[in-house]
């Protein structure tokens, strides 16, 4: 597209002749998705990506506070941490890690499909991403249910036979994985919106910013889990045998 300074505007074109900003579209016609405050589709995409990353930095700091609490309490109660970790199911946690990695692959492929203009590829990969994301949440539901049954939820019902410091571990477990799961729910809803837009054929090689930017969010949530899995599940794995 980027044949800048296209000069032949059709009569009645929205952009005035000589107004560089909108002369960059193919054939001198501005792309219908180009917002008027951007010079080109490339600049618009770069601005979107930059903006999303600034949001993700705030998310890093949001989760960072929880990781800070994790580090501080773990250094205070290392034994309670290792023992608490043994109550978590490494196989379910590991399976969920693989599920999220699969979802990140299909997400990346969905963005790629938009870049090469494959509507079918976008739809298939976005549906797969939603399916993997939902699978993760269903597995998480069964894990949580098991914790409730085994009296591992902090509060009055917490197993009195366990040391009190383990309540701290499980409090952080539920807060960190819970906030992560909330992000997953938001991500799945986001993908549903993008799927509808892709279904309508909204995206293509010239315009795929929304798919790319939503993908950044999805991958970020995957990265949070990449750290949660070893820090919560694998911590006491070597003690169990």
């Amino acid at each position: 597209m980027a044949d800048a300074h296209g000069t032949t505007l059709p009569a009645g074109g929205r952009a005035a002749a000589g107004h560089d900003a909108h002369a960059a579209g193919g054939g001198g016609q501005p792309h219908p998705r180009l917002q008027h405050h951007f010079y080109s589709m490339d600049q618009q995409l770069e601005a979107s990506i930059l903006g999303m990353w600034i949001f993700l930095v705030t998310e890093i700091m949001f989760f960072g506070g929880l990781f800070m609490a994790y580090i501080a309490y773990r250094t205070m109660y290392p034994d309670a941490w290792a023992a608490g970790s043994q109550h978590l199911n490494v196989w379910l946690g590991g399976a969920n890690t693989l599920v999220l990695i699969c979802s990140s692959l299909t997400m990346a492929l969905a963005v790629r499909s938009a870049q090469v203009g494959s509507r079918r590829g976008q739809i298939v990969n976005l549906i797969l991403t939603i399916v993997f994301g939902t699978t993760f949440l269903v597995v998480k539901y069964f894990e949580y249910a098991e914790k409730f049954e085994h009296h591992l939820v902090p509060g009055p019902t917490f197993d009195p036979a366990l040391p009190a410091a383990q309540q701290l571990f499980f409090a952080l477990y539920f807060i960190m994985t819970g906030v992560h799961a909330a992000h997953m729910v938001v991500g799945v809803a986001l993908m549903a919106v993008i799927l509808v837009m892709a279904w309508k054929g909204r995206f293509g090689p010239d315009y795929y910013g929304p798919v790319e930017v939503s993908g950044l969010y999805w991958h970020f949530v995957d990265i949070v889990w990449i750290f949660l899995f070893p820090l919560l599940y694998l911590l006491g794995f070597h003690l169990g045998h």
Partner: protein
Amino acid sequence: MSTTHHITPVRTYVAVFVALAAFTVVTAAVAYRDFGFLNTTIALGIAVGKATLVVWYFMGVRYNTPLTRVVVVSGLFWLLILFALGMSDYLTRPWMGVPGR
């Protein structure tokens, strides 16, 4: 006119996916054994490696503008400030007799 759109080949994405899955299996297998104080170092090292792959390839930071990269790195830098200053507090509290503790 600034950037051409880079389209990563499917093969690259699949290779990254295989690496991420392999790292997941490795980190679980390694955690099954006890390496003493190295346990957390190994686990976090693998996690950082996986996160780097996701950021660099899946999130496409390798094709992003320098400005975007600065933002990404600044986020990690501020996270390290949080951890460093936070722990310099908690780890040094026992050094002095703090009233009430």
